[in-house]
């Protein structure tokens, strides 16, 4: 059975003067699916999302929303998507309710819908406040509210929680979780926070330099090669290269943090084997910890960088 995808992106490319921002990305999103685009600064997330939103035009490749391309279907597609750009300032001296009313009028929606959105985003107390006086978190909730006005089938949020404190971030997550439960909306979300992707999304694409490095469900990604536990320890001297050939897992040395990292399948047996291996070679491990592998670990092993760098 092949349901029609809400969005289909086929081999999309986009360059600016000196950079190739997006280099051949494809994706397919089913109705109700939440997808995270995870990547460091400059990875090409915004460019990709804005192409899906119809704001930028790809140099090459195709984009379909409900089977329709942007060309000639602008007004129709604009009516079924909801977007929040990476950075938008709304009109400083309009109140929250007035701002929502203005955007509602573009979709021919009435005051009733504005009130629903105010309730949904928890902005009741602030409905008469000027936008300029809102906190960062309230502003992001307003942007989210505007994105949700037209009950979009596809929601695209570009870094909706960047710069927010953990509480404000959780409030946004709560709104999105509720949305997932109550509606059939699909979501494309970009983020630097792997926790955000883990909390909200069914499917994750890790991108860097305009390309997809790895993609899959959270479960698939973290069980990649069945190495789903991670052991980390410090050493006084760099781990000698090639020394780990006798083990059936790899040990990677990170010179910056002066840490060695190993991904293993079975922590009970592999940890014991690692310890005796280190003793045999006269290496003294310090600060040894082990934990479940996270997206950040995966990202680090893929790119040699941390997500938030």
């Amino acid at each position, binding site marked *: 059975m092949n349901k029609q995808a809400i969005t289909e992106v086929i081999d999309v490319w986009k360059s600016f003067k000196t950079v190739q921002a997006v280099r051949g990305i494809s994706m397919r999103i089913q109705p109700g699916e939440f997808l995270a685009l995870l990547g460091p600064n400059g990875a090409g997330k915004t460019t990709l999302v804005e192409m899906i*939103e*119809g*704001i*930028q035009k790809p140099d090459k490749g195709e984009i379909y929303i409900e089977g329709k391309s942007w060309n000639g279907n602008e*007004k129709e597609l*604009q*009516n079924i998507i909801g*977007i929040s*750009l990476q*950075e*938008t*300032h*709304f*009109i*400083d*001296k*309009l109140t929250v309710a*007035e701002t929502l*009313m*203005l*955007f*509602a*009028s*573009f*979709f*021919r*929606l*009435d*005051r009733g819908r504005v009130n629903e959105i105010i309730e949904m985003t928890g902005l009741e107390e602030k409905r008469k406040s*000027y936008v300029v006086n809102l906190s960062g978190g309230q502003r992001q909730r307003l942007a989210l509210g505007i994105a949700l006005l037209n009950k979009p089938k596809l929601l695209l949020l570009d870094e909706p929680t960047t710069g927010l404190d953990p509480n404000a971030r959780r409030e946004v997550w709560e709104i999105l979780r509720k949305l997932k439960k109550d509606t059939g909306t699909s979501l494309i979300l970009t983020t630097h926070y792997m926790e955000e992707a883990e909390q909200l999304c069914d499917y994750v694409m890790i991108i860097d330099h305009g390309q997809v490095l790895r993609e899959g469900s959270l479960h698939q990604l973290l069980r990649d090669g069945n190495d789903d536990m991670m052991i980390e320890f410090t050493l006084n001297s760099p781990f000698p290269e090639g020394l780990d050939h006798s083990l059936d897992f790899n040990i990677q040395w990170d010179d910056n943090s002066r840490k060695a990292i190993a991904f293993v399948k079975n922590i009970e047996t592999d940890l014991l084997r690692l310890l005796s291996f280190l003793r045999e070679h006269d290496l003294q491990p310090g600060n040894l910890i082990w934990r479940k592998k996270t997206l950040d670990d995966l990202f680090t092993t893929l790119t040699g960088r941390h997500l938030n760098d």
Partner: protein
Amino acid sequence: MIERIRENQFSQLILAHLKETIREPGVLFWGIIFPILMSLGLGIAFTQKSDSIRKVAIIDDSTRVQLPVGKKLLISDFLKNNQAKNVIDPHYKNCRQITIRDDKLGNLSVLFLTMAWEEAMVKLKQGELNLVLMEKNGQLEYHFDPLNPDAQLTYLKLSKFISRPGTQVSENTDMIVPMTLKGTRYIDFLIPGLMAMGVMMSSMWGISYNIIDKRSKKLLRRMVATPMKKTAFLSALITVRTGMNFIESVLLFIFAALVFHISIQGSIPALFLIFIAGNIAFAGLAVFISSHTRNTEVGNGLINVVVMPMMILSGIFFSYHNFPDWSITVIKNMPLTMLADGIRSIFTEGAGLTQIAIPAMILSGGGIILFIAGLKMFRWH
């Protein structure tokens, strides 16, 4: 039904523009109070005749001169005849004042200060004195700079009385008919100019700055990603501006009518027409120059480049007829000149629709062309 209209995107855009404009505290000041203050200041400075005071030095060497018999000292005679008041002045020992009454040209008070020749010359050069009087052999000598109109005026007024011994200063009985006919005063020239300038300034700053600011904040980009009509956005902005300009002009007119008794001698429909045409012209220009840049500083510069030359050249404060002939053709074709001259001709020359038709057509035609060109290259992102 009313609710439906309120929820319409054009009405909502108008409401939003209106609210964001009037909620800026500066708008009230720059749009309404400032032009009124300016008309008040300039109007009073250039229209009202106030009492003027002139200082005249009397050179005190008459004691050394031998008087021919029967001759009187002209100056002291003059002062005595007219009961000169002694005035206490901290800077001069001997100071007397005579006021020459004149209802039509304004009263003239002359202070007569007695001092030595050298001191008088210094003060004359410093501009503190208008005239130096010296009596030699029963002859009066007037020393003053003939290029200084003030000094000339003082000379003319005084000589009329002093040279004829025994005369008393009297009211001006000449047949002078002051030009207080409405339409010929400076204020009549100024108010139409201020109205035209108000339209230009508030359109250029209001529309251009608003657009560039929204573009730089990425709000335009956000708005055009919705089914909003682009023309609805721009026309709402222009409509709000035109409405505000109308209110500002009406308030300025009411003020000028109350304070300076200014009146409109020509046709009101013509005034309305040229006003709308001017708004179209400047709205078009504003959209055109703000069509591309997303940098508010660049925007400031662009607006200034357009606005400044017109402020200076278009005869808002002073007639442009003193500029060289070759430049007048250019100046006359600037939109601000056309608008100011158009409004002025209705106010003061009683012009009607026929005289206004051509400038109104050029203004609105130019505005529409600029608007379309601006829209063609308009950058929403």
